[in-house]
């Protein structure tokens, strides 16, 4: 005979407001097999848990039902409490009377009835629960970091310094990310490259970091502690082992007019290129879409259209025949740090639902540029060697208008969120501009100035008070060109007057969006993302760097708009989490996995076909003489995620999901029907 204990939680007012906890406890106490039933204000609190432990010992309970919040919230808490009192934790279950009941209903009477129903069916389930043992699996003590921007670099260095091996995968030919493109950084105006490049070199030279630049994650299998990652190393067309980075091939390259990605289109590069002189690794890549040799081959030319780089290379490193290679690595944890893209102001948008600003003339007026382009103009390594010169005619602009919130906070454009960094970098831009062009006028159109961060408010005030930036609160409705003047028509909402400015250049602080293709990567990793494509953290406050897939962590601007300090902090947090994970010999996993009854299994392998995780294997059943009787399905408990698809599919009912057996589920349904 079962001796079930029922514990009804009021969750303060959360449940208590609409559900009569005392009555629920009383009603459930009358059920056959229930030996104990009480209610309490906060069951998850220390005295609440003590109540459960005490009852388990005193009343010799064989099962526990906690009618409270979602199991997502506190199942672990209560199972730990049950285990503390000597009960197998899997004999403790939760009835969700908060999210499924009190929060969504108003009628107290009906809600209380429903809470009793929900409690009753979990009681029926727990009567049929069996003790389960935690599964223990080994941990591969290596981490994969996806993305070589500042977040990825920081995570890789911290993990490697902590003693674990790291594989750092970067899509572009060099690590460094957006931070390497920046001129100075707020709020200290220290040089971005000066603080970043030493870290890049450190990554390259670290004995425990394996850098795979110009590579992408192709597929991921497995689970926490035991991921198998297939990585595509894109063909550089240059043998990394032979190249010494002398640069002769780039000088020889005849295609010199490719818009430089690093200079945000303001400068040119060759088809054989390293993105920037401080690149790590300093090994060039052939852009095959632009290279004369490859374009010639694509057109079916028999003769080689070019080959100057190959001729120029003294070490024979240029290899036109190189192809993409695939390598498979085993890792125990993964950090997603793929960073951001800038929202495109023009008509062409990479994601559906996002609209551009046709009225700002971006893309048609050369002197209307975005924030990243201004960074390149202001950067000593940029196309103008740090002189602020406008793109159209190379003249020094005497009046620059900066527009904040271009895309950001504009639901009409499909981006509701604040991009966080723009207020700060626009203030920085006005300062950089005024430091370089003393008689220049900087006007900023803003909605709000959001400067929450250490030293941030002081920084934006400095832009106004010391460097004379003029802030106009309002939006710009139109930008057009008359002669060499860029006309800006806006509205000053504090004065209530229209403002027309004849500018020499306009800088748009465009919204931050997740990197293009993030959805595909997220699906590969089975992590969820929001409607903009930002990776979802497991809990917005308490688990900010974990994802909903165990063993996959997130850092930097791929999770939300982030500045450098935030990205670095997140990256170090992922490193701490991963090093903590790697400190275990074995990992414990929930035993709620599928199990096959070999006696019943007919070997149809429907389960194998439907399993999303590839957990179903073939097992041979032999008699004592070793003769093969049949081949049946078998579930690898390390891979199984307990989704139950196989159980639902099995025609002979020979697969059971532990903790969710047919018997248990039917008992719940019957309890509801009676």
């Amino acid at each position, binding site marked *: 005979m079962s001796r079930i204990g029922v514990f009804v939680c009021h969750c303060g007012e959360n449940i208590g407001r609409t559900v009569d906890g005392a009555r629920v406890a009383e009603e459930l106490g009358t059920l056959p097999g229930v030996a104990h039933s009480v209610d309490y204000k906060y069951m998850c609190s220390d005295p609440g848990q003590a109540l459960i432990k005490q009852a388990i010992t005193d009343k010799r309970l064989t099962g526990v039902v906690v009618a409270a919040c979602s199991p997502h919230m506190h199942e672990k808490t209560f199972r730990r409490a049950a285990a503390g009192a000597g009960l197998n934790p899997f004999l403790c279950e939760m009835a969700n009377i908060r999210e499924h009941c009190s929060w969504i209903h108003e009628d107290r009477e009906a809600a209380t009835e429903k809470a009793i129903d929900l409690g009753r069916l979990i009681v029926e389930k727990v009567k049929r629960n069996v003790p389960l043992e935690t599964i223990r699996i080994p941990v591969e003590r290596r981490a994969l970091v996806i993305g070589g921007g500042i977040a990825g670099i920081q995570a890789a260095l911290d993990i490697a310094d902590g003693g674990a091996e790291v594989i750092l995968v970067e899509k572009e030919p060099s690590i460094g990310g957006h931070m390497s493109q920046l001129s100075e950084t707020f709020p200290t105006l220290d040089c971005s490259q000066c603080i970043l490049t030493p870290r890049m070199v450190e990554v390259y030279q670290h004995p425990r970091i394996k850098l795979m630049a110009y590579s992408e994650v192709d597929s991921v299998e497995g689970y926490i502690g035991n991921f198998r990652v297939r990585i595509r190393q894109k063909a550089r067309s240059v043998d990394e082992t032979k190249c010494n980075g002398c640069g002769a091939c780039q000088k020889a390259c005849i295609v010199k007019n490719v818009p430089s990605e690093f200079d945000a289109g303001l400068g040119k590069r060759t088809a054989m290129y390293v993105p920037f002189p401080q690149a790590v690794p300093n090994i060039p890549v052939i852009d095959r879409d632009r290279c004369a040799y490859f374009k010639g081959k694509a057109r079916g030319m028999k003769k080689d259209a070019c080959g100057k780089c190959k001729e120029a290379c003294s070490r024979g490193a240029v290899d036109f025949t190189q192809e993409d290679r695939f390598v498979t690595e085993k890792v125990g944890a993964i950090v997603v740090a793929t960073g951001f893209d800038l929202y495109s102001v023009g008509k062409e948008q990479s994601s559906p639902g996002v609209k551009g600003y*046709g009225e700002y003339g971006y893309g048609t007026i050369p002197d209307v540029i975005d924030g990243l382009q201004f960074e390149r103009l202001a950067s000593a390594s940029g196309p103008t060697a740090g002189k602020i010169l406008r793109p159209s005619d190379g003249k020094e602009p005497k009046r620059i208008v900066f527009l904040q919130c271009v895309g950001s906070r504009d639901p009409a454009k499909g981006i509701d969120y604040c991009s966080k960094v723009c207020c700060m970098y626009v203030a920085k831009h006005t300062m950089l501009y005024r430091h370089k062009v003393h008689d220049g006028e900087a006007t900023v159109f803003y909605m709000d100035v959001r400067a929450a961060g250490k030293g941030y408010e002081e920084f934006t005030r400095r832009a106004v008070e010391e460097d004379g930036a003029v802030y106009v609160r309002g939006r710009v409705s139109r930008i057009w*060109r008359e002669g060499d003047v860029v*006309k800006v028509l806006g509205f000053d909402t504090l004065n209530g007057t229209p403002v027309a400015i004849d500018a020499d250049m306009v800088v748009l602080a465009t919204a931050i969006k997740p990197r293009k293709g993030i959805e595909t990567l997220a699906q590969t990793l089975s992590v969820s993302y929001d409607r903009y494509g930002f990776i979802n953290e497991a809990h917005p406050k308490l688990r900010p760097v974990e994802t909903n897939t165990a063993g996959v962590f997130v850092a930097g601007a791929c999770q939300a708009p982030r500045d450098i300090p935030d990205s670095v902090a997140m990256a170090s947090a992922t490193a701490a989490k991963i090093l903590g994970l790697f400190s275990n010999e074995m990992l414990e996993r929930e035993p709620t996995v599928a199990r096959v009854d070999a006696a019943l299994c007919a070997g149809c392998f429907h389960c194998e076909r439907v399993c999303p995780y590839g957990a179903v294997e073939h097992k041979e059943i032999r008699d004592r003489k070793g003769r093969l009787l049949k081949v049946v399905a078998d579930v690898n408990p390390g891979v199984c995620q307990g989704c139950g698809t196989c159980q639902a599919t099995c025609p002979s009912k020979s697969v059971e999901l532990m903790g969710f057996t047919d018997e248990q589920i039917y008992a719940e349904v019957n309890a509801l029907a009676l």
Partner: protein
Amino acid sequence: MRVGYYPGCSLHGTAREFDESLRAVAGPLGLELVEVDDWSCCGATSAHATNHLLSVALPARNLALAAEQGHDQVLAPCAACYNRLASARHAVASDAALAAQIPDLIGRPFPNSVTARNVVEVLREQLGTLRKKTVRPLAGLKIACYYGCLLVRPSEVCTFDDPEAPVSMEEVVAATGATAVAWNRRLDCCGGGFSLSRTGSVVRLSREILDDARAAGADAIVVACPMCHSNLDFRQGALVRRGEAELPVLFLSELVGLALGLDARTLGLERHFVSTKGFVERAMAEKPAPAPKQPPAVKPAAAPAPASAQKEAV
């Protein structure tokens, strides 16, 4: 293709040439315009400014009539009519309480099944036919496409093109062989209905538009709205009298008609206040492959006969 035709008051009055040119080009482009029987006011300006319910009910009545007469789309050449019809559809679709009132008000069911179309939208759908039927490519003529405010806005109502960076009119102009110039005031306000009450403002706004088109090198402005046409063409008279240069203002359908080989009279091009003669002559001129025409040719063509061409009025 059979299309319900809702001319509205303008096309029977000040913008007769819009009506004439549209009917003239419809045939060659494979459009059969069937005028909606018993149509009434679309509710623009007065109803729109004074009574919201009326401003929805009036266009709803016309759309309901079109539905009864078997149409699934109605062409409203006037931008204000188009805007009212489309806005009413949008208002009814997004407000169930409003939708419930309409049938009683208009004395008939309102299925909201007929789409409202404008000239630019309809002509753009016929680009292939237009290219094929163009017998007189308007090569060498530079056109400033003027959208005004009502054709592409508000964006949730007028969804056929981008509200801030539209391209549809330029596509139609390109199909006639003419060149659409890039200019700044394509979407600015012409003064609209203030033509009589605040003439000074309208003249000032119109002049900014005309000056910008001229600065962009346009030989003519093309519009798809009777109100814009009236402000840019009629009010330009005042500027011309002060000695400013003329810039012909054509309806899009007139330009298309010229490319289709129709004559100026059929298209109503003689009804304009600002002479279209020089422009028409250039359009009609046989153009051998290399275009020998010099850009300054615009001025002498416009200069000789400013008075004689301004015959027709309301």
